[in-house]
């Protein structure tokens, strides 16, 4: 049969299925709004009460006044439910602190390696005496440190902290999760050492030798099991949408990591398709759902208002779950892989517009008229910026997957810029915001120098854009030069030089921001700064005033 007829038939069957799904959702009442579902993150009577632990009391009162002026005063939260929340927080404090501490460590390692690699691209005769300082190794050290070290640890911290809160229960098996964290981070350290010394499995994002992956997988499993036990032990009936994202992402990363790293199974071009199935899914099914789930919690929680459309968030979840896993083939457009595979990936890349738009409408609607709050709340500032960049990076990704665009952008720094728009300006910013919110609750201690949070935000936001925008332009020019057969190849190198230098400047800004952030983290962990409310030991949070509800 001719492929045109096949695709027409496919489209026909899909539309019929879509119609049935629509009828079914009508019958089940799924299209009727469900404000009760959206409100489960609040205790009874808590709606209208703003929340940002990153703020000191006077600033928080100011924030509350802005909110009260618009929406009226909150009724006052149910003390019993707040006590449950404190209990939930206390049960997860130790493991969450551990994962955040590891994340901070890897953030510094990853930044140093990334900045050095960036400088080497325009100063190729710098540091050429040692193998481990070579560009190719430092680049892999950078990607692995930030992927498996920074973001993954931060994601796990967010999941372990929010699950007990959302399920109104205690974290089950906190000790096992910490054992898992030790295994995971020992594995990441060993893997990065292996890559630096030249021992690598050789595939992008799968560099860590499989012998070491065994430990990392064991670590992930030991984190997943307590999360699933906590889920089974829940005290709420309704699972909030963030829980969906978190639980699904934990299952996804386990399958991905296992299949992607199986030794001796994948060969030749099939290995390449598996490589990119994995590579893109780590972003799409691990970083993205955790970050989106985090925004779905922190954004309404800071505002004290449930998200406007709970159903849209559910639509976003299932469309993300269906479309995102199939997009990886767009990394091989024009390559020696079956044509249907890249076409499938291009189609699903474009379909990703649906979950992204669903999310963005929801975020925009919830924030509508409340943007001023971002002036006061650091957490919200990071979350808003991250959510906006999710929209930007995802739409850019959908366009980039189109064959005509990909022809230029493929094989160039444009892709690198796009990766940073997603992994930094979106995911990393959300993780920063989440940590600023969580840590005062985890340590029962306030951020000692609030100004540093503002400084960090501007360094990260401006540095990120300064990284992405010039490098995208440079990458595009590089692609055009490469496609022009009348220009020598070296033109495509020369044209990128000023943009690569800009990238190093932006990278230095980001690194500086990270030093501020991690320094602030240590200052807080070591109880520096003016003494404010809070006990000295983080496993005995103060009973005074039920701090968590304030």
């Amino acid at each position, binding site marked *: 049969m001719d492929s045109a007829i096949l695709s027409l038939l496919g489209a026909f069957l899909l539309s019929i299925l879509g119609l049935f799904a629509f009828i079914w959702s009508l019958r089940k009442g799924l299209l009727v709004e469900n404000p009760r579902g959206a409100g489960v993150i609040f205790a009874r009577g808590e709606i209208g009460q703003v929340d940002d632990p990153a703020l000191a009391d006077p600033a928080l009162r100011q924030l509350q006044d802005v909110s009260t002026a618009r929406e009226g005063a909150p009724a006052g939260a149910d003390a019993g439910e707040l006590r449950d929340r404190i209990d939930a927080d206390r049960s997860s404090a130790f493991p969450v602190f551990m994962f955040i501490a590891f994340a901070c460590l890897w953030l510094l390692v990853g930044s140093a390696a990334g900045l050095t690699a960036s400088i080497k691209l325009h100063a190729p005769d710098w540091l050429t005496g040692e*193998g481990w300082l070579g560009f190719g190794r430092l680049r892999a050290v950078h990607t692995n440190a930030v992927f498996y070290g920074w973001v993954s640890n931060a994601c796990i911290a967010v999941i372990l902290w929010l699950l007990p809160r959302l399920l109104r229960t205690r974290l089950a098996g906190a000790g096992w999760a910490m054992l898992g964290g030790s295994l995971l981070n020992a594995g990441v350290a060993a893997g990065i050492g292996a890559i630096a010394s030249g021992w690598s499995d050789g595939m992008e994002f799968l560099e860590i030798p499989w012998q070491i992956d065994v430990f990392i997988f064991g670590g992930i499993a030991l984190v997943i099991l307590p999360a699933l036990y906590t889920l089974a032990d829940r005290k709420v009936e309704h699972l909030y949408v963030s829980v969906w994202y978190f639980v699904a992402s934990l299952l996804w990363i386990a399958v991905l990591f296992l299949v992607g790293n199986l030794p001796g199974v*994948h*060969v*030749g071009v099939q290995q390449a398709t598996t490589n*990119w199935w994995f590579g893109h899914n780590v972003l799409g099914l691990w970083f993205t759902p955790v970050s989106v789930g985090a925004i779905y919690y922190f954004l309404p929680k800071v505002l004290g208002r449930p998200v406007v459309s709970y159903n849209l968030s559910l639509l976003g979840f299932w469309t993300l779950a269906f479309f995102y896993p199939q997009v990886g083939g767009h990394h091989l457009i024009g390559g020696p892989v079956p044509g249907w595979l890249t076409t499938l990936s291009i189609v699903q890349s474009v379909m990703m517009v649906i979950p992204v738009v669903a999310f963005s409408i929801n975020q925009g609607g919830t924030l509508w008229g409340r943007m001023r709050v971002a002036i006061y709340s650091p957490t919200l500032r990071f979350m808003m910026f991250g959510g906006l960049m999710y929209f930007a990076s995802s739409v850019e990704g959908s366009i980039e997957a189109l064959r005509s665009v990909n022809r230029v952008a493929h094989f160039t720094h444009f892709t690198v810029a796009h990766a940073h728009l997603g992994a930094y300006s979106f995911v990393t910013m959300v993780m920063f915001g989440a940590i600023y919110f969580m840590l005062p609750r985890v340590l029962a201690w306030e951020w000692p120098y609030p100004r540093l949070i503002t400084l960090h935000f501007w360094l990260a936001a401006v540095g990120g854009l300064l990284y992405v925008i010039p490098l995208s332009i440079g990458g595009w020019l590089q692609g055009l030069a490469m*496609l022009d057969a009348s220009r020598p190849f070296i033109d495509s190198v020369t044209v990128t030089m000023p943009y690569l230098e800009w990238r190093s400047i932006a990278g230095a800004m980001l690194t500086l921001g990270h030093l501020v952030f991690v320094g602030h983290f240590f200052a807080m962990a070591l109880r520096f700064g003016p003494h404010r409310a809070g006990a000295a030991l983080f496993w005995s949070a103060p009973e005074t005033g039920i701090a968590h509800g304030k």
Partner: protein
Amino acid sequence: MENELKLGAGAVASLGIATAALVVLPYLQVRDLHPAPGLKPYTEQQLRGRQVYIANGCVYCHSQQPRDRNFGPDFERGWGRASVPADYYYDSPHLLGTMRTGPDLLNIGARQPSEDWHLGHLYQPRAYVQGSNMPAYRFLFVQKDSAEDGDRVVNLPAGYGVPGKVTVATREAIDLVRYLQSLDRSYPALPAQARP
């Protein structure tokens, strides 16, 4: 949603569909692949060189997948015909790459067979290509006062060596060059993949 089992099952099923499409189907499609008739297996030394290529992350700047002529001027640049799955029969791990900070290397052995050129270029790329930003791989070479028996002395262009010393290639450098020289898929590709 109140049911965590449905959630888990739905999440795993959606990933399962994707895995079938992107991992299992390609596996079935290329499982019975035969090596291209003109393709020779790597020698032991070439495989060692391939490990040096992997260890130093050459793949992050060099692809090994010339594209079709209607996709880009890869052929006109001398990078070779569009590659086919049978060209990669002996490649594990695959090194298709996704960046072209430098040129495609699937046919570098045919394009540039000279060992002297490769060794010198690895030692100092800018001695051969003005404006190149490829790292200099100094650590793959040693400087000696005079060459000993069995040493492979690198003939560098005037002004690039260390005065009064000779530059000797290490075994890794020679292995790597052997691998690069072996990259030659200039034999004709089969018109299409043979399927029963």
